[in-house]
């Protein structure tokens, strides 16, 4: 395969970025997308150029480190697929591929395609946990959890924290990310005691960090590599409303 790549190159957070065109030959359709970039970098390095910087780690779709905006879509053209799981057989021979970093005010570019997603950690730190100290947990089966609830909680907990939902949203909203964590814990009996505080703190934190409000376009669900559905945003909204009605204060 031959491909033309248009890649966003940006020296650092403050520098002005631009697209640079690369022509790449002898690309195998069996290569993963990131292996194709490795292949490009190998050639750039040998010809004395600066290789393209991007985040990646597990290369099996679970760690959430990778995340490229490919041909106008987070993680590229395939549904329920992370960038690292994407293979070149999904692209046309002779085609052009445009590669950009995540675009969001809350995710500043570090270099080229690498962005800073610490804001997502900060949202979790604001309340995305159940406050149990090591050693104090009761016997695991002492609190029954219905199968449908644990399954639902699992579906929400599948979020890998890649930030594709934010990149997909025209408002750069992190609502799907927040909703996934809020819902997971609200479904489980263990998460109930802190449910009201949790949803309020997390939503507030997302606002403060510069993530926008929900755009109701469902693009987050569409581009989420784990297929987290927007129904969890509805669940989060209910949890939020419930918390407000109960007038539980946030510190």
């Amino acid at each position, binding site marked *: 395969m031959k491909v033309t790549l248009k890649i966003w190159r940006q020296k650092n957070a403050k520098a002005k970025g631009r697209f640079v065109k690369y022509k790449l030959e002898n690309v*195998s359709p*069996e*290569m*993963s997308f*990131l*292996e194709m970039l*490795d*292949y490009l970098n*190998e050639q750039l*390095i040998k010809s*004395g150029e*600066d*290789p393209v*910087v991007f*985040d990646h*780690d*597990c*290369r*099996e*779709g*679970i*760690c*959430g*480190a990778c995340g490229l905006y490919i041909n106008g879509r987070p993680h590229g053209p*395939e549904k*329920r*697929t992370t960038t690292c*799981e994407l293979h070149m057989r999904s692209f046309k021979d002779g085609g052009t591929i445009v590669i950009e970093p995540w675009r969001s005010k809350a995710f500043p570019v570090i270099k080229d395609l*690498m962005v*800073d*997603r*610490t804001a*997502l*950690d900060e949202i*979790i*730190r604001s309340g995305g*946990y159940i*406050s*149990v*100290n*090591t*050693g104090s*947990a*009761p016997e*695991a*089966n002492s609190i*029954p959890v*219905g*199968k449908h609830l*644990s*399954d639902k*909680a*699992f579906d929400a*907990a*599948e979020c*890998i*924290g890649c930030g594709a939902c934010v990149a997909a949203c025209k408002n750069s909203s992190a609502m799907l990310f927040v909703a996934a964590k809020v819902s*997971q814990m609200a479904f*489980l009996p*263990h998460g109930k005691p802190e449910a009201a505080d949790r949803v309020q703190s997390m939503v507030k934190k997302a606002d403060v960090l510069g993530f926008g409000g929900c755009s109701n376009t469902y693009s987050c669900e569409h581009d989420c590599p784990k297929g987290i559905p927007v129904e969890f945003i509805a669940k989060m909204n209910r949890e939020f409303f419930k918390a407000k009605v109960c007038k539980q204060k946030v510190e």
Partner: protein
Amino acid sequence: MIKLDSKIPSGPLSEKWEKYKTGLKLVSPANRKKLDVIVVGTGLAGASAASSLGELGYNVKVFCFQDTPRRAHSVAAQGGINAAKNYKNDGDSIYRLFLDTIKGGDYRAREANVYRAAEVSNQVIDHYTALGVPFAHDYGGMLDTRSFGGVQVSRTFYAKGQTGQQCLLGTYSSLSRQVNKGTVTMYSRKEMVDLVIIDGKARGIISRNLVTGELERYSAHAVVLATGGYGTVFYLSTLALGSNPMAAWVSHKKGALFANPSFIQIHPTSVPVLNEYQSKLTLMSESLRNDGRVWVPKQKNDKRHPNEIPEEERDYYLERQYPAYGNLVPRDVGSRAAKERCDAGYGVGDTGLAVYLDFKDAIKKQGKKAIENKYGNLFEMYEKISGIIPYDEPMRIYPAGHYTMGGLWVDYNLMTTIPGLYAIGESNFSDHGANRLGANSLMQCSGDGYFILPYTIADYLADDIATSKIPTDTPEFEKAEKAVNERIERLVNIKGNETATSYHRKLGKILWDYCGMIRNEEGIKKGAKLLKELEEDFYKNLIIPGTGAELNQELEKALRVETFFEIGQLMCQDALNRKESCGAHFREESQTETGETLRKDEEYAYVAAWEFKGEGKEHELHKEPLNFEFVELKQRSYK
């Protein structure tokens, strides 16, 4: 002169830990906040240790090289986590879990450590459940379990095929809570590049800021390494590309002994190599062997489509050779059996280096829905990589480098031979002997971090309550930082024309061929020689663009590859020294008539702990004899 003292307490197995714990010194809450602890790594071991220590009130600094702690490679563990709850009423117990682990490890692990890991396993499950980890439940609301390789009970708790992810996000949430409280400070995108020792004690680290390239100094009263294993030494492995043993290795070179480096688990069920640019082998969870049947055609070089090969022409070789355990034999046995069939010419796929894992019968019996419920995400993952839909035709699988049983030598307190330096989780050597059983990894990492280290580290820190903050402007920090700078300068200034990855790929192939699944004296020696030659070439022809004083992913790789050359050499030396077969270490010269591992207990029932004696010098071997007080050593049999 190093003298190994494992500090294993005396007394009956089931009372050792309880009794020992009560004898350990404590640190009062008021003193804890004066004490700094560095934790390197944020996987299950690191994040659980850091959050637990934070909860206790210590001042914790935790480091990861990824952009966020939630990326640590524990996230990729699939199948499950073991515990001796006996919820299935099938005869399980702490003792049984202990026994299975000792046997699975082919009698090369410490009894006391293994028993303790089994003992705390139940608390681990309780804790994760309370943290909101969505383990699978049955309709009555109780936790579900499934079977795993090498055992005859059902003790594996799971969250579909993403148990590691769910447990990691659980520990990450408690870590986040402590960061929010201010007891833990999180340092992301920083990689430990050296250990700092002051007056013989571990007192800090040098880390490289991966965004700016700056070297930074951090001090503490104790340092905990939770940095995982070195399976990426093979280049192609089931690990994340960033996983690397540099932190453990630099500590080794500062005096921490490295134990059983040649004990590397090759996982039997990974997606096979498909192209020459491949950067990674994706694991297909062992849990699949609960329902999947492994086979190859009875005819050599059978090129027919698997669905066209009739039942009577299929060789279900695991069921044939090991009727008692069938497809659920331990990993080392399963891997070697696959290699044996492929080497004999029965392999499938274009390369002939694959066997089938077939779900046809399970789908027929249980229905597609049931199989989808159990393994849906794994099937999807397989389809994405290979383009094959496993509901319609069998998966192709082949063994891949996976987990390192070897690691830093630690005593019963999980402390290395450097006072104040601890190693937990996969980075130590202590619990899995020569082969790890499936789902025992999450169990051990979590047990170490949540329920063992917080007790044992207090015993050490109790003597340090009068020691004020450790300054970082001392000659020791100065010297360590200078040495790292020189290392970096040396690499950056080679200015050759071969990339770090290209060396990594080559060195991985050498080790895979000569110090992999099957080893012999001649091969290991040849491998070591080839490795040495390649290393010399590395220092002549490596190319790194840019400098050390900036974001430089190629430099990061080169520093790690440098480590792999050295650890690879020690793997060969260890494999050469151990002229017996045990678990994953299979020496051709030592096998039974039927081709199984043959141990030599009189000569080799010891932990091989290697001491670094200086650059260019031979490592020195120290032996820690393994005393089996409670278990009778037997030839392992899964037939």
